[in-house]
């Protein structure tokens, strides 16, 4: 008992710090998964037999912010839609990424980030026919037939897709 008390006493500052970190991580940071050459397969496996939207965005892309806002609002309305968010930036830009995700209340979503910012190999792995423009969105049906759309999405298009997958 005494030994345990000693450990607790010694660890108190660390524990408090950890609690602070946990508090902060829960409120401020997204769980950003690293997107490498094999990650698309991982994502597709994760949503086997399920429809989902994959939204590709970047902190440097102003229209992406408007798209994130739109998608966030739709997510509020249709909580069960699977949504995946992929930033083409890298962890070095984590503060800005988190700040934007927080603004649009997307911290708790399935968030991914390029292993290396703007990597041609990762763009190719995601879609060899994509020219790199952002935002870029992929609508997957439950059979994982996908349609890629470049540029800011229109709300009607997203809602049409939601109707189709219902």
């Amino acid at each position: 008992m005494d030994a345990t008390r000693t450990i607790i006493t010694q660890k108190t500052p660390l524990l408090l710090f950890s609690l602070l970190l946990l508090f902060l991580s829960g409120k401020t940071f997204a769980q950003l998964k690293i997107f490498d050459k094999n990650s698309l397969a991982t994502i597709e496996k994760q949503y086997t037999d399920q429809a989902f939207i994959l939204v590709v965005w970047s902190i440097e892309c102003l229209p992406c912010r408007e798209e994130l806002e739109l998608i966030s609002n739709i997510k509020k309305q249709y909580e069960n839609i699977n949504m995946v968010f992929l930033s083409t930036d890298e962890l070095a830009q984590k503060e800005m990424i988190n700040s934007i995700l927080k603004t649009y209340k997307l911290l708790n979503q399935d968030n991914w980030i390029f292993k290396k910012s703007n990597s041609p190999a990762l763009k190719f792995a995601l879609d060899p026919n994509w020219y790199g423009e952002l935002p870029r969105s992929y609508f997957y049906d439950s059979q994982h037939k996908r349609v890629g759309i470049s540029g800011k999405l229109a709300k009607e298009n997203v809602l049409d897709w939601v109707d189709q997958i219902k």
Partner: protein
Amino acid sequence: MNKTLFLISIFILLTGCSSTNLFTSSSKFNIAQCENKNELSVNCGKAPSSAFDENGKLWVVYELNDHLYVSSSSDKGLTYSKPAKVNPTPELIYARGENRPKIVIGSKGEIYLSWTKNTQGRYTGDIRFTRSLDQGKTFEEIKTINDDGFLTSHRFDSLAVTKSGDVFISWIDKRDNVIAAKKNPNMKRVSTAAIYYAISSDSGKTFNANKKLIESSCVCCRIAMTPYQDDSVALSWRHVFEGNIRDHAYATINSKGEHSQTIRLSRDDWKIDACPHHGPSMIKDINDELHVVWFTASDIRKGIFYGQLDPNSQEPINLKHISALPSAGHPYIESHQDALFLVWKIFNGERTQIMLQKSNDLGVKWTEAKVISETDGESDHPFLLNHRGSIFLAWSTTNDGLKILKVGQ
């Protein structure tokens, strides 16, 4: 009770740390010397930009840990001098892709630098400038070139020095959006910007007041700016035409600050509300004709295109589809006498390659595209340098550092 608390604390410690550990790692350069994050080297610095002086000395500026550094090489990039620190006080600097520090060397060996400082807030910045008149030993006090005082986007600087010695800086500027929003707080957010410029007629000692070239530019693509005639520059940029068409336009500005009309460069009709992050490259030839390479992904044409500008038409002369590959990007053009050199980057599924094409008749006919360099790591955009007619590729890769490769003359 205490044991339970202890277990909870361990759990919290682990879970709390697991979410923060994600943020302690960052990308590393593969080459061994760059594993030290403080390694001062052109091979490890971010977004290096290069230029030759009149004597063939190569000058490189790069960013590392919120400072700019300048090094020189007297052997075409084999070895470099000890780097000189440009900004004594650290500041956040945009240093990647289309938004990077610039270096231009004057005819008397003046070293001119411009860059964009990342100011507080998203997508904001100030245009910064300094010069060295003692071969890079010291740099003068840094100037902020944008003169509006707003905390908004002044970014994507471009720098050029004319034959007459006038120093031009142009950039993408959102001050007008701030002014409009102050007048009408309920206005819808505007997703375009303006192009502003400033000119120095005393070799960068002072700059004239900022002037506006045009409104409605794209907000995230580099401006191509090249010396034109004796005392002017020509600029090309991605413009947002009516209907959200993101095609290119161009104009010229003389040393008195007078600018030409803006002329549409091509009719690609790329309608998109997106950030291409893909600006053009432009060069003048011996006859003062302008040649441009650019990227588009419109319904009528996709990929990289070349053309000689025609002031009387909205389609260029000798329009050529350089590459339709989706991975093809970031083309750069240089000229010498009747020759044009063009490089761009592709990803072939395994490696990133730099392609070269040459024209010996100012763009009428072109050689077959050939691979001149490649890497299986990450890489920067390719650039071409011209030293008295010898053309060099400057390309930074994670595996090999900054490559300086002679590609023709």
